């Protein structure tokens, strides 16, 4: 059974005249690393908000269709119930940390769920170590860099041990190197813990290599849904505002010029480099 499944999901914000997402039917399997991408305003954030019930509970408006997340009807369950299964990391690291120390922030969700102190302490330390911020645990979040803050936000979600972690452009305020480090942390969690990851991201250059499922949206609809290599080699994707990895584009150009490269579309420069090296042998 898929861990996230939507059927003909459509949603209109209360103040909007037309739906922000339309007829979305997707399936995400347990343990997948899903990448959602598409031009600005195509409804990625809106879709993510349906996964933990922020839509329709927090945003109201009209939600049609079916949505099942972790075996639960996310449209019916309140967000605080869904929060045990779906962790959500938002774009702006600053506005999702409220406590005056890192460890207190990481404990916030567990405190809300009423965990006893001993188990809470264990989980907090575990999450801090996984995200590499154990040494910063007594610092105050607002005197940390954006990358560190985003790690705190991830740790805070992990401490609740959800089955799914949804990250909505978690690195758009960060420089490429810090972003890369965050993605590595996320990928590691996906590999080690079997955590299902849903990542919204524009910069496919940095992220396509981690994904095993990619969803491309445009104007509130799903345009492509499948394996990254297959989806990204489709010419139609070039017409939507999607940042196809440079390695993939270069590969196509070389191929068109008649270079004798392999047939698997590369997703990052390292893969392409390996292919070129192979060809030059």
């Amino acid at each position, binding site marked *: 059974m898929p861990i996230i499944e939507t059927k003909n999901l459509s949603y209109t914000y209360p103040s909007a005249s037309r739906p922000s997402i339309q007829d979305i039917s997707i399936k995400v399997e347990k343990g997948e690393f899903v990448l959602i991408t598409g031009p600005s305003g195509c409804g990625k954030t809106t879709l993510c908000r349906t996964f933990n019930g*922020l839509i329709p509970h*927090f945003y109201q408006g009209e939600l049609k269709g079916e949505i099942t997340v972790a075996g639960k009807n996310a449209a019916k369950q309140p967000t605080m119930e869904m*929060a045990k299964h779906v962790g959500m990391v938002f774009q702006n690291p600053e*506005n999702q940390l409220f*406590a*005056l120390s890192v460890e207190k922030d990481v404990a916030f969700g567990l405190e*809300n769920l009423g965990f006893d102190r001993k188990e*809470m302490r264990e989980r907090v330390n575990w999450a801090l170590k996984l995200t590499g911020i154990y040494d910063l645990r007594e610092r105050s*979040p607002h005197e940390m860099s954006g990358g560190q803050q985003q790690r705190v936000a991830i740790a805070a979600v992990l401490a609740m041990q959800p089955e799914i972690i949804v990250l909505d452009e978690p690195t758009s305020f960060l420089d490429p190197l810090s972003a890369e480090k965050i993605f590595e942390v996320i990928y590691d969690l996906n590999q080690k813990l079997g955590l299902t990851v849903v990542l919204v991201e524009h910069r496919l250059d940095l992220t396509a290599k981690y994904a095993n499922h990619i969803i491309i949206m445009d104007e509130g609809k799903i345009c492509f849904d499948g394996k990254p290599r297959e989806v990204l080699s489709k010419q139609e994707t070039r017409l939507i505002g999607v940042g196809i990895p440079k390695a993939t584009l270069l590969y196509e150009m070389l191929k068109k010029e008649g270079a004798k490269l392999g047939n698997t579309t590369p997703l990052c420069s390292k893969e392409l480099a390996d292919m070129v090296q192979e060809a030059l042998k």
Partner: protein
Amino acid sequence: MSVFDGLKFRKVYSPIHNLDPRMKFIYVIIIFAVAIIFNTIIPLLTLFLMQVPFVMLARVQKQWLRSLRGAMFLASFIFFINIATNFFTQGYTLNAKNIEDAATMTTRFLVLVESFSVFFLTTSPDHLGLALEQTKVPYEFSFAFTTAVRFVPVLAEEAQTIMDAQKARGLELEKGNFLKRIRNYVPVLIPLIVSAIRRSLELAEAMEARAWGATKKRTNLYALKFNKGDYVLLALTTGVLIVAVYTVLYVPVPTIRALLGVP
């Protein structure tokens, strides 16, 4: 910003910082009570000096002096108002009694400022929020308190950015008379309020996503506990209270003017 300097918390670790904030609060209340029951300057001065070792132990002398300096304006105001009222109500004479009474009032004020600033200088906002939580204040209040503390620097920074941006577009903040100057701040306030609202919506969303309100019985990562130091402070403050009450009831405290033999 400098106005709040005396009340700003810096991370220092000392025996005083580690005390239970609830105990420190009891201490402030008792000092308040004692300062109010005395009407003569000598006990009030004693009370003032008695707290100095406390400040030294907490190693916050610098900030403490700064907050006292900040209170100086108000203190001298109190002093002169007292002298003036005595002067006008008691037959236009200025005598030693008037001056000593005014000094007593001022010292009392300084004692209050002193104990307050010791409390705020040695209690982290985190601790304070925790104390609120564990004294059965609804969690919403203590959360609002810590969040406010957390976001004050953020908003201050944002206000600065908006001010710079509006100045770059030709807004002149320091021009015109008083009313005009207030009106000049409208283009700064509106974006600030809009962004604060947006920020609070994002915060609310993030709180929801982390199971805010999932159980009635919320737990806490930290626990406040009375330790040895807290019992010592409790004993000390109780001692001070007993001595103070005894003195007020049975010991005639001389005034300085009596000691000096001035009428």
